[in-house]
C-alpha cells in the first residue's frame, strides 16, 4: 500500500512540480474503501485456486498433517501417479476436452458468423422470425434438450461417441446473437454494396471483405463457446459411458466418486483439478486483452 502511495506521489510530483506543497492527504488520493473491498473480492476468488496449487504439491500424508498453505514435497510423485493412473487416462480426458472445445467452438463460430452476417446485412422475408426462434434457444433449459437429444442420438447410434457430444453444441444461440450485433456494427452496408458493384459474388464479399472486419467479434464468440463447451458437464454426463471419451470435467468427477471413500486417492483428484485449471487460466490470461468484453455485455445491454 505504502509503495503504491509513493509511486503515485512521485508521478504526481513529476507531472506537476508546482503543486507538491498542495498535495492532498493520502486518503483523498487513493479511494481506500473501494480498493480494499476489491482486494477482499480478489482474495475470495483466488483462495480456492491458491489452495489447489499448494495442495497439489503435497504428498498423501502431508495433505492431512501439514498446514494447508504450506507447500509440500510431493508434486513430482503426484504428477507421475496421476499420469500412470489407468494408463494415462487423465491425459486422454484433457485431449478429449481440447478436441470437444476446440473443434466445437471453431464450428460454432463459423455457424454463428454465417448466421449473424445474414441477419445483420440482408433484408429478407422471415428475418426477424428466424432470429427470434434461434434466440429462444438461449432460454431452453439444457435438461429439456439433453435427455431427448440422448434418446434421438441413440436411435442414430451416435451416443457414447465423440459426435454425440460435439454435434449438439455447435449451434449457440448466444453466439448467433453476438455475431449479429457485431456484424451490424462492424460491416458497413456501403462496402458490401461496393463489392456487388464490382461484380463479386455474395460468398466472395463475405470471405474477402466482411469476414476480416468481423474477426475481433468472432474471437469473442469462439472464446465464449470454448469456455462453455469445456465447462459443460450435463451433456457428456448423459451422453457418454466409455471413459476413454470423457472430457476432463466428467473424468475428474468419476475420479472424485471413486476417491471419496479412499483418502489415498485425494491427492490424485487434487492434482488432477490443479492441472485441469491451468489451460483455461492460461488461455484466459493470454486472451483477456483480445477478448472484447464490451461486446459480451453490450449485447446484454441492448
Amino acid at each position, binding site marked *: 500500500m505504502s509503495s503504491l502511495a509513493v509511486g503515485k506521489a512521485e508521478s504526481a510530483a513529476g507531472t506537476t512540480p508546482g503543486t507538491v506543497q498542495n498535495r492532498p492527504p493520502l486518503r483523498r488520493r487513493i479511494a481506500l474503501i473501494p480498493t480494499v473491498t476489491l482486494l477482499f473480492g480478489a482474495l475470495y476468488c483466488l483462495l480456492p485456486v491458491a489452495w489447489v496449487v499448494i495442495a497439489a504439491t503435497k504428498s498423501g500424508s502431508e495433505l492431512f498433517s501439514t498446514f494447508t498453505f504450506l507447500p509440500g514435497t510431493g508434486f513430482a510423485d503426484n504428477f507421475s501417479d496421476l499420469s500412470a493412473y489407468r494408463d494415462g487416462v487423465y491425459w486422454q480426458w484433457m485431449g478429449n476436452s481440447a478436441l470437444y472445445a476446440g473443434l466445437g467452438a471453431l464450428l460454432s463460430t463459423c455457424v454463428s458468423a454465417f448466421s449473424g452476417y445474414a441477419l445483420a446485412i440482408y433484408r429478407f422475408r422471415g428475418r426477424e422470425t428466424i432470429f427470434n426462434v434461434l434466440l429462444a434457444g438461449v432460454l431452453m433449459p439444457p435438461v429439456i434438450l439433453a*435427455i431427448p437429444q440422448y434418446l434421438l442420438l441413440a436411435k442414430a447410434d451416435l451416443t457414447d461417441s465423440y459426435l454425440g457430444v460435439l454435434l449438439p453444441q455447435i449451434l449457440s444461440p448466444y453466439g448467433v446473437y453476438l455475431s449479429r450485433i457485431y456484424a451490424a456494427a462492424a460491416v458497413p452496408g456501403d462496402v458490401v454494396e461496393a463489392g456487388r458493384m464490382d461484380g463479386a459474388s455474395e460468398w466472395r464479399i463475405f470471405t474477402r471483405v466482411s469476414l476480416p472486419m468481423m474477426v475481433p467479434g468472432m474471437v469473442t464468440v469462439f472464446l465464449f463457446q470454448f469456455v462453455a463447451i469445456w465447462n459443460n458437464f450435463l451433456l457428456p454426463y448423459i451422453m457418454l459411458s466409455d471413459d476413454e471419451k470423457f472430457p476432463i470435467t466428467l473424468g475428474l468427477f468419476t475420479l472424485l466418486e471413486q476417491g471419496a471413500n479412499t483418502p489415498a486417492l485425494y491427492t490424485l483428484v487434487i492434482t488432477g483439478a490443479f492441472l485441469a485449471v491451468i489451460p483455461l487460466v492460461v488461455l484466459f490470461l493470454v486472451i483477456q486483452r483480445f477478448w472484447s468484453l464490451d461486446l459480451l455485455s453490450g449485447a446484454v445491454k441492448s
Partner: protein
Amino acid sequence: MTSTSRRAYGVKGAPYAFLLPATILFALFFALPIGYAIWLSFHKVKVSGLGLGAGARKEVWAGLENYTDALTDNELVDGALRVLGYGCIVVPVMLGLALLFALMLDSEKVRLAPFTRLAIFLPYAIPGVVAALLWGFLYLPDVSPFYYVLEKLGMPQPDLLDGGPLYLALSNIAVWGGTGFNMIVIYTSLQAIPAEVYEAAKLDGATPLQVALKIKIPMVAPSLVLTFFFSIIATLQVFSEPTTLKPLTNSVSTTWSPLMKVYQDAFGKGDIYAAAAQATIIALATLLLSFGFLRAANRRNKQDVSQGGAR
C-alpha cells in the same frame, strides 16, 4: 438483363444459404428434441402379459397422467423447494456483490483495479465441477484451512456439508463462480455512462455514495434486470455442483435438485416418460418465473419513468 436478374436472385437467396447450417442444426438439436420430449411426456409404456417378446411393451397415450404424477411427487416438490431456497441466497448475494464490485471498480482513484477485476473474473474460467470440487475439499475438516484455524483457536467447527449450512456451502460455490461475469456486465454498462451525467452532481457537491445510489444504479438498471433474468434461469437448473458434492457427503441425495431428479428418473429408473414430463414442467416453471420477473421489472421501470416525468 439476365445478369442483373441473376445477381438479384443471388442476393435474394444468399441470406437463406448463410442461415442454412444454423437452421439445420436448430431443427435437429433444438426443435426435434423439444418436440420429442413433449411427445414422450404424454405417453407411457404399457406392458401386456409378462412383458416378454416383441410387442409386449407398447407406447400408449397417457394424457396428463405423467404431469399429475410429477406434480404430486414429493421428491420433485421437495427438490423444487430446496432449489428455491438456494436461489433466494444465490441470486441476491451474487448480484449484490457483482454490483458492489462494479461500482468500486468504477469509482475514482481506485488502485489495483486491473488486477482485482481479473482476479474476480477468473472463476468464470473454472468449470462448475472443478469449482465444486475445490470448495468441497475446503469444506472437509481434514484438509480445510478454515478448520485448521478454528481448531487452533479452539472454536466450534460446524459441519458445512449438512443441514442448513449445506445451502450456504452450495450457494457459495455458485456465488464464487458467477460474481465475476455479472460484475463485468454491470461494469461495462457503468463505463458507458457519459461523463456529463456526473458533472451536475459534482457541482452540487454530491458524495460518491450519493452518485452511486442516485445516478449510477438507476442508469445500469437494464443490465441489472438482465443479469437477474439469466441468473434465475441458471440457478433453477443447478445440477453439476450438487452432483459433484454428492460423493463427499451423505446429505446431498440423488434427487437434491429437480434436474438431478429428472436425471435419476430417466437413467436410474429408466422411466423416460416421467422424466420428460418433469423436464417440461421445470422448463415451463423456469420460463414463467424468469419472464414474470422481466415483466414486473419492465412495468416498474415504466412507472419510474412516468413518475419522473410527472415530477
